[in-house]
């Protein structure tokens, strides 16, 4: 089953884990066959939010959530069950600086 591990970090911790370490850990995940995709993200200030209402596209800056932590990256993994996914998430280096939300992927119905 696929799980998306969403990495959340406070702004001043976005660079707390060296890139080298993140690279090495995703290589490790890839080798063990759990990892399907992983990326780090630019800070939330660089984001644009897009909505379509009545066929009209609106673009705003943001999102600016109330919470201090922002989405900083993601790991899409393939795990047998939640316990295996939790074990993998615990090995994501920024987990020690911020938090990792482990979300099961919902397969779209045919």
């Amino acid at each position, binding site marked *: *089953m696929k799980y998306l591990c969403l990495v959340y970090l406070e702004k001043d911790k976005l660079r707390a884990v060296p890139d080298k370490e993140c690279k090495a850990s995703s290589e490790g995940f890839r080798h063990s066959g759990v990892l399907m995709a992983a990326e780090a993200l630019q800070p939330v200030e660089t984001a644009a939010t897009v909505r379509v209402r009545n066929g009209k596209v609106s673009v705003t800056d943001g999102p600016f959530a109330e919470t201090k932590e922002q989405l900083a990256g993601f790991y899409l993994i393939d795990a*047998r*069950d*939640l*316990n295996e996914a*939790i074990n993998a998430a615990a090995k994501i280096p920024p987990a020690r600086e911020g938090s990792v939300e482990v979300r*099961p992927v*919902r397969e779209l119905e045919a």
Partner: protein
Amino acid sequence: MTLIDPIHEAVNEVYVAHSRRVLATLIRLLGDFDVAEEALQDAFRAALEQWPRDGVPANPRAWLVSAGRFKAIDGLRRRSRFDALDDVGERGEIGVIDAAAWADAESVEDDRLRLIFTCCHPALAPDAQVALTLREVCGLTTEQIAQAFLTPAPTLAQRIVRAKAKIRDARIPYQVPTPAELPDRLDAVLRVIYLVFNEGYEASTGSMLTRHDLSAEAIRLGRLLAELLPEPEVLGLLALMLLHESRRAARTSSTGELIRLDDQDRSLWDRQLIAEGGRLVEQSLLSRRFGSYTIQAAISAVHSEAPTPADTDWKEIVGLYDALMRTDPSPVVELNRSVAIAMRDGPSAGLALIDAILERGDLTEYRLAHAARADLCRRLGRVADARRSYERAIALTQQETERRFLERQLANLQQPRSVAAAGQPRASSNMGEV
């Protein structure tokens, strides 16, 4: 008209003795809580039909598992709405006793542990863990749980439905944790059991009557876990619950008033429970892998050993609180340690420690901190300080019997103190220790 039917009675006995174990195995075999529960009901319906005709089978539990599994697969096939259908079908047709499902005896024995660990999975909300454990492991009805927790039944039912949906959708596995995961996961299970016990024991709100059952249920769970997984802290928690339970008859008066440890009639303490608790504490201490439940149980055991409050070995208790501060430090533990020090070294030593905790702002909203402070001030003759602290404690308490208890203390304070026969003001220990 009550015609006693021996077969119906036998089925009933089997239900009481085995339904939870059958359910635990069916969840493993069928991979879904709701399907397994339905299968369990179907299996007992089948037993009521067949056993009067064929007699009670030699191994009723195996029979019920096989019947439940057969009924479930049959039902799934007829409805054919499950993707897992082919998967289940491949495991083969089932005869009267499904040897394949039963052959792995060790697996069957572990099923109850699987069920406990799944219901107490940390990915589930704490209140959902409690509700699910009482529903699935203990077999309480949703209405019973709702009543005991003073929660509307629909709220509780929804909590259970959501928890089961999460187990399914997030794929929380039905397994006993690996040795590496065990300490953390076991903590979660012990927390659930102790929470259930305390709901019944302390009765933070509401009437006591229905809540007694929760303590009994928690002790039953503790015994089950001790049998399945005799880890030191499992034994420690069971000991702690038994030692608290041993004082049940002594801790409330006939009118329902709370009686402090010091004022309890110790002849009402249940010696059998104390002996059992004591043995478990020793067993856990010998392992040298014990933790905070065992230390708390050891403290409780020291109280239990004292024939009168004056005989309490406060030196030993302070030593145990020191150990507890090392394994599981918290402001509440620090408060209890301060009270023990007051008993060992005198009230002013304890008061200085409590004032330091309160000054830090850690327990300013905790009623027992103010109650303990009030008591120490009283013993030091600082009546005005004692009064202020009692009033603060009363303002913070939610529980009726506790409020009345504190109001009595406050009232006694305002009257000229009747000094005890020995010529010393009555010393009283920790109110939390009742």
